[in-house]
C-alpha cells in the first residue's frame, strides 16, 4: 500500500490542518527528493523540542530527507534526545524501553517479512550511544550476529545528554562529566570495528559536515540492509550543551572532529559493493 495511507480522503483537503496539506502536496512522499534541494520542499520532520543548534537534530533532518522510501519506512528510537525529533516526523516511529531498539527492530522486521514477503519495508534504528553501546549493547550486537536486515544508526553525542550529562561508553577518555568526576577512565568504544566484526555488511563513520555525503551513506545503509544484512552508521552528533560548544561553533566542531577521530570511513562487503556498482551503472544509463 505504502503511499495510500498518506493521501488525504477526497473532500477533506479543506479540513486538514495546513502542515498536513503541505506535507502531502509538497512533501517527499511518492517522489525522490535530492537532499541538495532542501529548503524547497516540505520536510518530513516538523518542529521539535531539541536544543538550538543541536547537530543531532541536524543529522536527523538530513536523515529524513535521505530516505529512499519514506512511505514504507519505520523508525525506532529509544530514550534520549533523538526521539524528541523522531517523534515529530511523518514516518511511523516506535519508542520502546531504554536500549531495546535492536531487539524490537528484530521482531518488527521479521513480522513485516512474514506479512509482506514481496515488499520492502525499511526498518531503521536511530538511537544514541547510551542506548546502543551501553544499556542495549547485547541486543545491538546480537541483532548483528543474527544478521537481521535493518539499519542501525548511532547518533553519538558522547554523553547522556537527556538525563543531564553523564559519562557514556562512547565518551572520550579523560573527559570530565557527571558520574565521571575524575574524568572518564577508559577509551571510547570502537563501535565501527565492533560492527564489522559482528557481521554488519555495510559500516560507516561520519561527521555531519557534508549533507550530500550523509545522504549517500544513509541511502546506502538502508538499501544494503534491504538485500544483504545488518548495516551500521556511526555519526558524530555533538552535544553543545554538555560539551559547552557555542552554538555558532557547532559545525566548526564537527569539522574539527572530522579531521581528528571522526574521519569519514566507509566499509562494505564485496557483495554489497558489487550491488552498488551495478546500481550506479544503471542510474548513469537512466
Amino acid at each position, binding site marked *: *500500500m*505504502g503511499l495510500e*495511507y*498518506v493521501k488525504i480522503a477526497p473532500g477533506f483537503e479543506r479540513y486538514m490542518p495546513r502542515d498536513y496539506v503541505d506535507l502531502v502536496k509538497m512533501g517527499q512522499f511518492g517522489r525522490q527528493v535530492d537532499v541538495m534541494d532542501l529548503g524547497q520542499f516540505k520536510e518530513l520532520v516538523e518542529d521539535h*523540542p531539541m536544543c538550538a543548534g543541536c547537530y543531532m537534530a541536524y543529522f536527523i533532518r538530513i536523515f529524513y530527507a535521505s530516505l529512499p522510501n519514506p*512511505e*514504507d*519506512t*519505520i523508525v*525506532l528510537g529509544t*530514550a534520549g534526545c533523538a*526521539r524528541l525529533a523522531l*517523534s*515529530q*516526523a*511523518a*514516518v*511511523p*516511529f*516506535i*519508542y*520502546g*524501553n531504554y536500549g*531495546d531498539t535492536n*531487539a*524490537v*527492530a*528484530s*521482531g*518488527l*522486521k*521479521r*513480522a*513485516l*517479512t*512474514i*506479512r*509482506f514477503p514481496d515488499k520492502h*519495508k525499511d526498518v531503521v534504528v536511530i538511537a544514541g550511544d547510551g542506548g546502543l553501546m551501553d544499556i542495549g549493547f*547485547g*541486543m545491538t*550486537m*546480537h541483532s548483528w550476529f*543474527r544478521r537481521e536486515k535493518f539499519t542501525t544508526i548511532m547518533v553519538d553525542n558522547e554523553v547522556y545528554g537527556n538525563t543531564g550529562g553523564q559519562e557514556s561508553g562512547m565518551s572520550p577518555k579523560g573527559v570530565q562529566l557527571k558520574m565521571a568526576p575524575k574524568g572518564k577512565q577508559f577509551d571510547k568504544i570502537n563501535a565501527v570495528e565492533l560492527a564489522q566484526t559482528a557481521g554488519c555488511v555495510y559500516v560507516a563513520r561520519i561527521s555531519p559536515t557534508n549533507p550530500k555525503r550523509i545522504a549517500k551513506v544513509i541511502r546506502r545503509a538502508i538499501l544494503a540492509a534491504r538485500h544483504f544484512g545488518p548495516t551500521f552508521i556511526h555519526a558524530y552528533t555533538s552535544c553543545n550543551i554538555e560539551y559547552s560548544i557555542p552554538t555558532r561553533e557547532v559545525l566548526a566542531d564537527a569539522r574539527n572532529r572530522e579531521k581528528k577521530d571522526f574521519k569519514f570511513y566507509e566499509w562494505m562487503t564485496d557483495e554489497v559493493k558489487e550491488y552498488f556498482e551495478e546500481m550506479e551503472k544503471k542510474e548513469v544509463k537512466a
Partner: protein
Amino acid sequence: MVEQKVVDPDYLILEAPRERKFITGSQAFAEAIKRANVDIAIAYPITPQSETMHLVGDLWAQGYVKDYYRAEEEYGAMSAIAGAVRGGARAFSATSGPGLLRGLEAIVSWPGHRIPAVLGVMTRVVNAPLSIQPDNVEIAYLLHSGLIVFHAENQQDVFDFTLAGFPISEKVDVYLPVVVATEGFFVTHAKGYVELPPEDMKLPPRDPYKAPVPPTDCEIPPARIQRDAPVQKSNFMSYLIHAVWQQEVWSANERARKWINHYLGGLIEVVNPKAEVFIVASGCAAAQGREAQRYAEMEGLNVGLVKVRSIRPFPTQELREVLKDAKAIIVPEHNIVGWLCKEVKAVIPNGDRVVEGPRVYGGMTLPVELIMDEIYKVLGIKKEKKTLV
C-alpha cells in the same frame, strides 16, 4: 506437518470434537501453539520453560509456526515480541522465574503499548539462593501492570488457556497481553490427560487492522503514528494523558471479563457451591484443593472449592457471591508471600474468615493432607494421625 484449515475461534475452542491425550504441560503448550496459527515464537533457555520452547521450535521446523529464533536473553526476547506484535504478527514466548524478572521491564510495558501476545510462565523460585523448583511467587510481580494473568491448574488448563489466550488478547476492546502461568515441573514436566481438538484446524490469522491502535506496518494511517508516546505532563501535553492511558489499560483488563467468561467458562470454577468451608486456590494449589475437597466429601464434610482461573482481571464479584455464607475460607498457596490470599482478603468483607495458608514454598510439594488439617481445624475436628512426618 498436517494440512490445517482455518476455523472460527469459537468452534475450535468451544465446539470442535476433542480427543484425549496423555501429555506433559510443555506438550500442552505446544499443542495449543500448533493450533493457534502463530507467526513468530521467540525463545530463550531457562529451566523449566526450555522444554516448551524446544517443542515450539520443532513446530517451526515442521511449518506450524512461521518464524522462530533463540534470542540473546529475555529482555531481548520480550522486546522482540513487542516489535513483532507492533508489526502485526501473532507472537508467543515463554519464560520462567529469573528469566521472567529479567524480561519484566519489557513485559510490563506491553499493556501500555497495547501488545496482544501470549506469554507462558512456568513458575520457579525467583529469590536467592538460586533454585529451579516450582514456587509461584513471581506471579505477584505480574499483577500490577495491566497484563491479563491466567493461572493454569493442570495440563488441560494450559492448553485451553493458551489457545483461548490469543482470541481474548486480540479482541479490539481488550488488546492486552495474556500470561498463562502454571507451576513448573508439577505441570510442565508431569503428564495428564488433555482433551485436544483436531490438529488439522487452526485459529484464523491475526488481523492487525481490527485493533484499537494501528499496527506499525506502513499500511494504515496515520503516518505520524505515536503509539508509544512518552506522554507526561509538559507544556505540550495534558496532565491527564498518562492517567487516562493507565485507565485505558485497566479498562481493557475489565473488558476482558466477558471474553474470559465466553471462552473459559468463567473467571472461577466452583465445586460444591453450598459448602460450609471453601478452599480458594489457583494453579496447582487448586489441584490439591480439588483433591482435598474430594477427601472431605468422602469423610462427610461440607467443603467446597473455588478455583480462580483468572488472577487479572480478578473475580471480585464472583468471589463475594460464592463466599458470602462461607464459614471459613482456606487459601492454600505455593509461595511465601500469599499473594492470592491478599487478593482474596481484599474482596471479602470480613477478613477474619480467610485462613492464610497452608503455604509451601521453595519448591516444596503441597500435600493434600496439609489442607485437610486446616479443614479439620476450622471445623473443630480433632484427628489422631499415625502417619509419620
